[in-house]
């Protein structure tokens, strides 16, 4: 799952060319992923992990880094 998410961000969502994305890299504050990108990322995760992301789960604590996202998926 980790690699799938990273390669999706790198190939589809990143607003600049990046060689590697660290699992602890801040996706939101850095501007690496924009608002539309976050909507797409949530849909991607819903499909890949077969979970439903509730609106109230759209928080920085759940989506700031790839690491946060993986922990969120594991809790679901």
């Amino acid at each position, binding site marked *: 799952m980790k690699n799938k998410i990273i390669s999706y961000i790198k190939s589809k969502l990143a607003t*600049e060319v990046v060689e590697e994305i660290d699992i602890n890299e801040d996706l939101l*504050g850095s*501007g690496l992923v924009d608002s*539309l990108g*976050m*909507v797409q990322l949530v849909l991607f995760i819903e499909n890949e992990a077969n979970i439903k992301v509730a*609106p*109230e789960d*759209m*928080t920085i604590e759940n989506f700031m880094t790839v690491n946060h996202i993986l922990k969120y998926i594991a809790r679901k």
Partner: protein
Amino acid sequence: MKSIYTLPQLIENVARASPNREAFRYLEETISYSELHKKTDQLASYLISIGIKKGDRVSIFMNRCLETSIAVYGTLKAGAVYVPLDTAAPLHKTAAIINDCQISCLITTTTKRRKVDTLLNEKSTLNRVIGDTLKNSIPSVAWDDIFSIELDDYIPPTILEQDLAFILYTSGSTGVPKGIMHTHYSGLSLAKIAADTYDFNSDDIFGNPAPLHFDPSTFGYFVAPLVGATTVIIPDAHLKMPASLSALISKERITVWYSVPLMLIQLLHSETLDKHDFSSLRWVLFAGEVFITKHLRALMKKWPNARFSNLYGPAELILCTYYNVPEPPKTDEPIPIGKVWNNTEYKILDQNNNDVSKGEIGQLAIRSATLMQGYWNNKSLTEQSLHKVTIASGYDHTYYKTGDLVKLNNLGELLFLGRNDRQIKLRGYRVELDEIELTLLKHKDVEEVAVLVLGKDEEVQELVAVIKPSKDASINLTYLMEFCKVELPSYAIPKTIEFMDDFPRTSSGKISRKEISKLLEEHQL
């Protein structure tokens, strides 16, 4: 109280009267008015020491953060003009703006290092970076070095209210960037009129989600200091995560919120508004786009104690009209943009620039203290955008032609009817694209919509509606087409309907119809 003529005097005044009052806050970081006064003197002193002269342009390349307040006021104190750059824009476009303005100095923070490095690879007039120390590059200086400057020999330059203060670049509908020039006078006029209109006071806490290059940032950076209030700068991350934004507005006890409607709609849909306490919220202001009435009604019911106001104004005037929504709207009709505020008058013009008869549709033209000085480096475009009424030989009244279509309702309020250029001719029929959008929005399954024309020549042009469905809506294309047939004249029915999970947007959050048509055209190839 002494009179104020320039923007830096806003900070000086509060720093003198209430030095410890909090000026800006960004999460756990905070800066008082007296600290801001000193640090901006230090930045101004540095700018003057490297040769920045009155009227020179200085660029600000930052995300929303505490240092933006120092960059803005430090530049202004040096007598220079600040030019905020969109950090999300393609870097060759950013370089084009830097060259258009002949900018030598860029103010930034360490978080933008990767982008600044790439930007410096573009050919530009930059020869100095403030806010980060760069290796093997042009001269640069860190913030800490700025803040250790001694001010014994610092002599502030004389600034007049008609001096240029900032230039805002907008992409413009034709795609060529326009630099909108504002003076200390137009910026300060905006602050004074806004403070009168809404009765802001020193207990207010302004939520500022706008980036510096977007004109609503004038509220957080100028209006709040005029009344001695505090501005909370909203971090980028919160704007992407509505549930976190909701918690932040509540926690910071924000009393004045001003944003595009989109952010408020996202808050509404975050389903967190019942979880937090929003009792401190006094004013909810919105502008930049039409607030879809059904969403506005829902939000007003969630926040019954706040007052809601619809503001309108192109960046050339910053703002010019307002409408305080008296109660949750009963119907889905769009709400008015209201009346012009203080120190402002208007005309509604027909195609020959004559006044229309009462109640007729025409282009809105505005004369105001907040009117821009003109477009940077583009005299002919400035002339084109203005409408001059000769009162006597040698004395004109100058109006700005907004390019927006309006009419008066029977209460004397202005109704916004869309862009002048969103009215097209299709097979001989005059089609208002915005009107088609408003019709589709009445459908309960439609959350947002963009109606576009594809095809260059009139014979092959087609209407396309792109729809973002409401949450949990099970959209049926046949049923939606039926709805169009009932609600619209036959020539205004979209040939095709497409669906998108969300729209591409401009950096200010507006739907980017240009990007959508690009996407559609690529798909069809």
